[in-house]
């Protein structure tokens, strides 16, 4: 009798775990919204860069100023000396409109995710390194595993490993806030209200250059992220991020 009661008691618990999504619905929705926004921002941002593929440091910069660096690409403006004998078509109109609209969606999505992540304990449970992992030894062990391209541990299908957690923390709490900040620093209206947005960065052209370099960092993350998902099992991981379907049972991998 006691045994039966016990197993009946445990039933909902077991069922709940089997049904538990690998990723919470809010994580899945905000993940793909962010993906869509990021791709829209990337394409439109590159189109805008093509109109002046030169980067400067400080407050001002133009074709009469020596650049910090230039991209070796043709430009969509005849005023920019690129060494190419032709000028690309101007795509800035729709690019700018898409860029700022996607930025708004990204900011709302990010705000929703960050508030939910803080309130639900998602950051504490899933992003903050686990208690046993908060040491340099743990980090070097985890990095060594990654650099050897070791097969992911079975537990990785259920939770993020240390390197993942640290990478996601940097992307979510450092790179995205900085790319938004440097973007706002280029708004003449916004900086008229909050001048420190641009003065702290050393000027408008520094903000633009940092905005570009942060984009390079985010694209690098995206490439490694997709490569790691591929390595870990593309369809299982992508399905988990779309439907929330739990990974195959523990130990079966």
């Amino acid at each position: 009798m006691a045994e039966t009661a016990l197993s009946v008691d445990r039933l909902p618990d077991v069922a709940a775990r089997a049904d538990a999504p690998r990723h919470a619905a809010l994580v899945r929705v905000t993940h793909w919204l962010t993906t869509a926004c990021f791709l829209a921002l990337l394409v439109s941002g590159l189109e805008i860069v093509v109109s002046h593929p030169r980067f400067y440091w400080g407050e001002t910069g133009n074709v009469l100023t020596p650049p910090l660096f230039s991209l070796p690409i043709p430009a969509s403006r005849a005023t920019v000396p690129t060494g190419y004998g032709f000028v690309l078509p101007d795509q800035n109109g729709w690019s700018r409109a898409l860029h700022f609209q996607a930025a708004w969606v990204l900011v709302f999505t990010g705000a929703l995710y960050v508030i939910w992540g803080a309130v639900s304990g998602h950051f504490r449970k899933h992003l903050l390194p686990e208690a046993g992992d908060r040491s340099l030894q743990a980090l070097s062990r985890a990095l060594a595993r990654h650099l050897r391209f070791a097969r992911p541990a079975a537990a990785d299908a259920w939770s993020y490993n240390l390197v993942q957690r640290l990478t996601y923390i940097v992307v979510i709490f450092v790179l995205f806030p900085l790319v938004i900040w440097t973007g706002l620093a280029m708004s003449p209206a916004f900086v008229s209200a909050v001048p420190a947005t641009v003065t702290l960065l050393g000027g408008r052209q520094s903000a633009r250059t940092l905005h570009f370099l942060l984009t390079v960092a985010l694209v690098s993350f995206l490439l490694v992220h997709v490569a790691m998902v591929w390595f870990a099992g593309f369809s299982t991981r992508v399905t988990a991020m779309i439907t929330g379907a739990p990974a195959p049972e523990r130990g079966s991998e």
Partner: protein
Amino acid sequence: MSAVSRRTMITRGLAAAAGLSGLAAAERIADRYGLVPPDHGGIYGPGATLTFAAQRLLTRNSRAREFSRSQISTPPFANEIAPPSDQFKRLQADGFKDWRLEVEGLVAQPASLSLDEVRRFPARRQITEIACEEGWSYVAEWIGTPLADLLRAAGVMPQARYVVYFSIEKPWWESIDMADALHPQTLVAYAMNDADLPPSFGGPLRLRVPRQLGYKSVKFVNRLAVTDSLKRFGKGLGSASPEGGYAWYAGI
């Protein structure tokens, strides 16, 4: 379908309906307070409207950054302009003595001002940065008559909502709302870095709107029209920029 999920669906439906009617009410209020840009239609309208509304609320009285004399860019960069029209060349040959700035629309006294008459107002000098939507920028000192002073002298009527300004070089025209038009840093500039504004920089008269990107600082300005509606101008989108795919509001 369980009762719970049906209840969830009804709740969501109600939330969506409330959200939509909330949006409609928000749009009416926003329009009343001048927070909806004239080019708010189309797929990119929501983003353009959010940007304009948010920045208008945040920046109504804020000042564009001003710089020290040592930060003036030497030499400044003169962006490419179309070859001047015959009309412009004739005026230039005469030292622009026949240049006129027409002030018309919702004003008590429409005026047709010569350059000397524009210069007779108290001058404002300011060292600000002009930033092009392409990404480049420079700092210069601009000297001119605050647009607000010209408008006050003409007697702007209370129903005025926008000032439309036209370049002699068609089809270049723009408009700004009264918050920007009456802003102390919005200039009808006639000089730059201690010399008359060169034609390569928009002389003899150029509007300077330092809280927006360079394309709002129209060159060769010869007409200002005060209006309560932008529907009668061009395609009704507020300026030539949206007709060419660019946003009317360029505070970004």
